[in-house]
């Protein structure tokens, strides 16, 4: 299973990548929104994790791009922080499937990913 993760904090990104690789997932890390939007049609991941605040293109743009991919139903989990409820709501309106609020537990994140993948 391939996961695309868009997160601009290098240490958080590497931590999540290591955790997901340890769980047996194939992970495509992206450090900004533009990189994620470029990688999306090339990698065609099974699930996308994205932070809301990213350089060059926001998490909302990524959610929108994922949901516009024809013939694909790729689930999207968004990372948010406290106080970003409006943005999370907007992400859900665009088609986001779940969200994780920072600070988050890596175990909880893994469970949510597996739950989304089970639906496919």
């Amino acid at each position: 299973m391939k996961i695309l993760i868009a997160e601009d904090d290098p240490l958080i990104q590497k931590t999540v990548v290591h955790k997901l690789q340890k769980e047996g997932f194939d992970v495509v890390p992206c450090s900004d929104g533009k990189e994620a939007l470029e990688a999306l049609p090339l990698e065609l991941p099974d699930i996308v994790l994205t932070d809301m605040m990213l350089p060059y293109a926001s998490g909302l743009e990524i959610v929108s791009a994922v949901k516009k991919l024809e013939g694909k139903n790729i689930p999207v989990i968004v990372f948010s922080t406290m106080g970003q409820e409006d943005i999370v709501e907007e992400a859900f309106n665009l088609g986001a499937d779940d969200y994780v609020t920072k600070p988050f537990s890596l175990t909880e994140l893994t469970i949510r990913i597996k739950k989304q993948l089970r639906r496919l």
Partner: protein
Amino acid sequence: MLVADYYRDEFLSFIKPRYLYGAALAFLVITLFIIIAIFVFLQIKRRRFFRKEKIDSLLDDWISSAIIEDDFQHAHLSPDLLVYLEKARNRQFAIDLLLNTRKNLLGTAADNIKKIYEQLDLQLDSMEKLRSPVWHIKAKGIFELYMMDQRELMDEIAAYTNV
């Protein structure tokens, strides 16, 4: 009028080919020296930047691998990182990295960050800040110790509160 004539004559006496050639040569040497100095300075900065990038990446890799361990016990650092963490500035960089990551994670990962902080003796740096006479450094020390859950220093911190 006489004074002006005197200075004009003095000035004109220097505008002779032999003086001008000497001045041009001196100017050329100074310009070359400045260019070489700038080039060397930029090379040193560039080398330092890439070395820092490499070490930062190593530190990120090492911390992120340690954080996800289910049963994290000891920090095994590479010699490169040990040398890197000898400098106070780099230790502060490591503290900032750990603090930022702890703000974003919960559970075992957050506990492991605390263990890494303690095993690298970074709490000594925070305690030094706590004992600083400068208020904003003291506040930074308190924040670091609070974020890293250093309960044994609670009494010392409580002295600065109005409780």
